[in-house]
């Protein structure tokens, strides 16, 4: 009897460590399988595309093929594009998108917080903002080219109008949904209205605002690209337009690939900044 009692826990602990280990192993294996699956999918899609194109199952003139796209990118990187070096085009587009993004974000946050805090402003401006938001804003891009010319200003403007609204609505909502207890507490502790806005409303609206920043950088790129596509002297959008004009489908795809890389890098930087700013938040379970 006593032997049983003594031996049971020993066996138990042995089992638990065994289990923990096997669980950890299973988790590692799953991760590896997911990565392999991703790689396989990519290779399969690119491979099929290449094969179909070479076998003329799909028209290689219209659909191009991965190897040609790669060659195109390689040529652009090593010999530059017809418009100048590739870096210059990327920088031009990025500069327009970034500038438009910053202006749109600042305007959106300031107006969103102001309207969220001052009910009078919200009541007066509310319907007009709804009307403006319901306009398909991308059609403004040609108008901006007419207004501001072929330079960067017209692209910045189209990026601004695309970025402003999602940021504005998120900041507005964030300011509206501040915990009433926190505001009451700040007022009791002696905070003026200005301090409540700066030290309670804005910090608690930041998570709302950051959600919109991720989406809106994509919008800023779209704004810049569409603007360039319609009329520009430099930029990736122009590269797309020119490739299309010379029936160079590989060029269009290559420009898209470059854009995707730019967008992903920007997204990564934003996530990094977010992690630093939100140190006060409980960590996500997946970290």
């Amino acid at each position: 009897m006593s032997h049983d009692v003594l031996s049971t826990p020993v066996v138990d602990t042995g089992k638990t460590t065994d289990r923990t280990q096997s669980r950890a192993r299973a988790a590692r294996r799953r991760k590896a399988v997911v990565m392999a699956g991703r790689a396989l999918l990519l290779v399969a899609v690119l491979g099929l595309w290449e094969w179909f194109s070479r076998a003329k199952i799909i028209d290689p003139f219209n659909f191009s093929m991965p190897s040609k796209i790669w060659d195109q990118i390689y040529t652009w990187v090593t010999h530059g594009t017809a418009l100048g070096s590739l870096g210059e085009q990327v920088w031009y587009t990025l500069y327009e998108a970034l500038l438009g993004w910053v202006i749109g974000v600042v305007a959106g946050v300031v107006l969103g917080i102001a309207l969220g805090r001052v009910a009078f402003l919200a009541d007066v401006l509310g319907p007009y903002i709804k009307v403006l938001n319901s306009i398909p804003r991308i059609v403004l891009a040609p108008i901006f080219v007419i207004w501001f010319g072929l330079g960067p200003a017209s692209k910045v403007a189209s990026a601004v109008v695309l970025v402003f609204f999602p940021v504005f609505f998120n900041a507005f909502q964030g300011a509206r949904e501040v915990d009433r207890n926190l505001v009451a507490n700040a007022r009791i502790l002696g905070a003026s209205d200005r301090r409540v806005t700066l030290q309670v409303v804005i910090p608690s609206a930041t998570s709302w605002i950051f959600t919109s920043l991720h989406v809106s950088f994509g919008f800023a790129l779209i704004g810049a690209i569409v603007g360039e596509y319609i009329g520009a002297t430099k930029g990736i959008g122009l590269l797309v337009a020119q490739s299309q004009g010379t029936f160079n489908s590989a060029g269009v795809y290559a420009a898209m690939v470059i854009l995707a890389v730019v967008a992903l890098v920007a997204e990564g930087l934003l996530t990094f900044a977010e992690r630093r700013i939100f140190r006060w938040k409980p960590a996500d379970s997946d970290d």
Partner: protein
Amino acid sequence: MSADTSPAIELRGASKIFRTPSGGLHTAVRGLDLTIGRGEFVAVVGPTGCGKSTTLTLVSGLEEPTEGDVLVAGEPVTGVGEKVGFVFQQDATFPWRTVLSNVMAGPRFRGVPKAEARQKAREWLARVGLAAFEDRYPHQLSGGQRKRVALAATFVNDPEILLMDEPFSALDVQTRALMSDELLELWEGTGASVVFVTHDLEESIALADKVVVMTAGPATVKQVFDIDLPRPRKVESVRLEPRFIEIYREIWESLGEEVRITRERGAAHVA
């Protein structure tokens, strides 16, 4: 009337009517008369949702009475006063500030220089036993610890009037008793007048000099009971004394009726 001899808080025929989202009117408090002396610890008990919390927001200046007068130290209340501290039922610590920064918030809002605010905040953190936690964020603390931060953040402003809205109701029973004792210790050094709203009769008797029983909503004062238990008290032991049980029975006779009325009304709403 001299400001020095006037009572700490005076409500004269105060009423508060809210407009409900559906457009109707809801009377939370009606014709409330209540006087709280300086340095007095008054507990307000009443059935749930009867308007006890509204009374506190009127005294704090967060809300204005629809009718009647609210006076603090003989002066009518206009906006949030300097002398008032408020401990809320829910967590009201700022989640993006560290513990130390949370406690510094009050003095900083009131224009105290940073170094002085930090020093005062550290003193109060030590008093509530959180000196080692000053760099943590609220989400890294337990519910009881967060409540201690809230107490420190309130006491650091040296309030003459301390309003507490069911501050310990979200805590577990053991933590609650511990926090009640700590509150009594902190308060005894300050001489502040306290209005402590609760629906827990035991808690109110253990803490207070006076227990005010409110009617079922709209709230008005039904009866006031003096608690003659000697201080200093320990919450866990005082409630075993025969006098405590006697007082409890006496007050419950008055309060129980209001609780029953509220419950019947609730049942009528459901039906």
